[in-house]
């Protein structure tokens, strides 16, 4: 059993509550930096893919998990980030400026879109954001002059002060770039969670009425959540462009939006861990499935819709049996070990919740 002794309020404000957690995440970081020396190029590429998805997951998590606003339009923001970054660099802006700017631009566009869209709630919001995904495709085709339209674009090689980074020929450099962006985004996310804005997000998610009564401006808070979410998503989009090596109007489709949303639900809504767990599932599932399929039915046979089907099944199973996602399951297992042998079966059972008959709205 592990017991926290807290001696100052700073304990609860710190990034890591105790030495133990610090050492775990410290080792994880060391492992992450040592990875290029441990893995071959193929697997390093896969891990890079996981990290990029995790960044995108963090972006959507901030909006959906933290603030409670579902979006099925986030592929559009991946696209905006990706195109903005590529076009800026084509215009001669150095990567070190173009990349952050691409995210910020995506965030600003997100805020502008959020103003009308976030007046909607729940399923209506989800439907409205689907339109964004569809629209993005059309806009890319229409603005062929800048976007390359259907024939697509190839991002140029990244150079940071003369230092070159390329996904295929230098996978470990690209991996480090993605890792650094992941760490920065995770830190931003963590910092927001432990400050007033992060709590305002949770307040908006759980009760708009009482959030308002405590002085939280609902529309403004949602707008900030949408903007920050889009900014992080934009960065993920720019990295996806480099990872894919080429992209066009179909790269960031509605399917990507849906995958992203499923990913954070499976991973566990409302937690940073959830974004990472979900990303692992999304990135490795296709590989695992194809290996499985090759062994079971032979490599010549194609099964259309297999991935989507299995993904959907997993999602349904999670919603039915573990609504807290992989992270929720992980918490339960960890608690069981920490409390051993005192864990009880009903420890995580929720108390009866109380009717909210008089909800305003």
């Amino acid at each position, binding site marked *: 059993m592990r017991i926290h002794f807290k001696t100052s309020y700073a304990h609860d404000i710190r990034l890591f509550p105790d030495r133990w957690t610090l050492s775990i995440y410290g080792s994880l970081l060391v492992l992450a930096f040592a990875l290029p020396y441990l893995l071959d190029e193929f697997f390093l590429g896969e891990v890079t893919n996981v990290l990029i998805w995790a960044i995108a997951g963090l972006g959507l998590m901030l909006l959906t998990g933290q603030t409670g606003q579902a979006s099925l339009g986030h592929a559009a923001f991946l696209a905006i980030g990706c195109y903005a970054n590529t076009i800026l660099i084509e215009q001669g802006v150095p990567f070190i400026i173009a990349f952050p700017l691409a995210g910020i631009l995506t965030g600003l566009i997100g805020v502008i879109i959020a103003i009308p869209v976030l007046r909607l709630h729940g399923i209506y919001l989800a439907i409205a954001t689907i339109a964004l995904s569809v629209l993005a495709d059309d806009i890319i085709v229409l603005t062929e002059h800048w976007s390359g339209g259907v024939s697509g674009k190839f991002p140029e090689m990244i150079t940071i002060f003369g230092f070159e980074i390329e996904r295929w020929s230098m996978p470990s450099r690209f991996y480090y770039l993605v890792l650094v962006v992941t760490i920065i985004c995770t830190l931003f996310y963590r910092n927001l969670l432990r400050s*007033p804005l992060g709590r305002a997000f949770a307040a908006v*998610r759980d009760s708009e009425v009482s959030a308002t009564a405590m002085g939280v401006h609902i529309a403004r808070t949602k707008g900030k959540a949408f903007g920050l979410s889009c900014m992080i998503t934009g960065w993920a989009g720019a990295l996806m462009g480099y990872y894919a090596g080429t992209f066009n109007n179909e790269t960031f489709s509605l399917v990507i939006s849906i995958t992203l949303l499923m990913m954070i639900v499976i991973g566990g809504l409302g937690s940073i861990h959830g974004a990472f767990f979900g990303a692992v599932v999304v990135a490795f599932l296709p590989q695992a499935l194809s290996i499985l399929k090759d062994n079971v039915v032979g490599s010549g046979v194609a099964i259309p819709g297999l991935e989507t089907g299995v993904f959907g099944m997993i999602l349904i199973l999670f919603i039915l049996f573990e609504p807290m996602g992989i992270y929720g399951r992980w918490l339960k297992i960890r608690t069981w070990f920490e409390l051993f042998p005192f864990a009880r079966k009903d420890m995580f059972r929720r108390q009866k919740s109380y009717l*909210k008959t008089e909800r305003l709205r």
Partner: protein
Amino acid sequence: MSLLEIKNATLKFGGVVAVNDLSFSVEEGEVYAIVGPNGAGKSTAFNLISRFYEPFAGTFTFDGNNLLDREADQVADLGIARTFQNIELFEHATVLQNLLVGRHRHRKTTLLEEMFFTPRVRREEERHREAVEEVIDFLDLQPYRNKMIAGLPYGVRKVVELGRALASKPRLLLLDEPASGLSVEETQDMRWWIDDIRKQMGITVLMVEHDMGLVSGVSDRVLALADGAKLAEGTPAEVQANPAVIEAYLGAGAV
């Protein structure tokens, strides 16, 4: 001048007149209770003060400020905090986080500072935490500090909601049925707390309550409402003895 002054307030929901030409004022430092049968318009009056509803007519003044000039989220900035009849807590957050949301109106840091968690944000966080800890000590919430609301029993939720309102250091506290659903012991606690909130913290309390024991125990003045209109106003004893009030509660012929 009264702290809160409401004059000729009227609000209709379709054909239902929920609040009907209602006037009353709350003096600084008092505990003012509103009583009345179900559907009398008590919660609606609260929601008008919180600016959740736009009144059809009437003036609302708080400490010289016209409340009608404010949006619902700006009411807290004036120093008005409230609880809800059906408990509106942030379910998927801890007690501590809930109370810290109460500090929202005192935040000074910007989005950018918070993203980088600058030393100023850290200092502010510690300051907020100190304020919240005072509330936790006051309401004996120590055992629940890091518990999720979703798993807490009803009585504790009620106290947490009171705590969240107190954490904002209000001048006026609106309590919508603070004792409903509480056990006898919990109601007793609530009574001491309301007393201390007024005496130690100097916060003015406006509350809606059905429990006449609690009302006569803590309040200086009572307003009896029926069908959205004022029936009687005065000390608890006066209002309880008022024939119109007795009739509204027990029906005609009971007197």
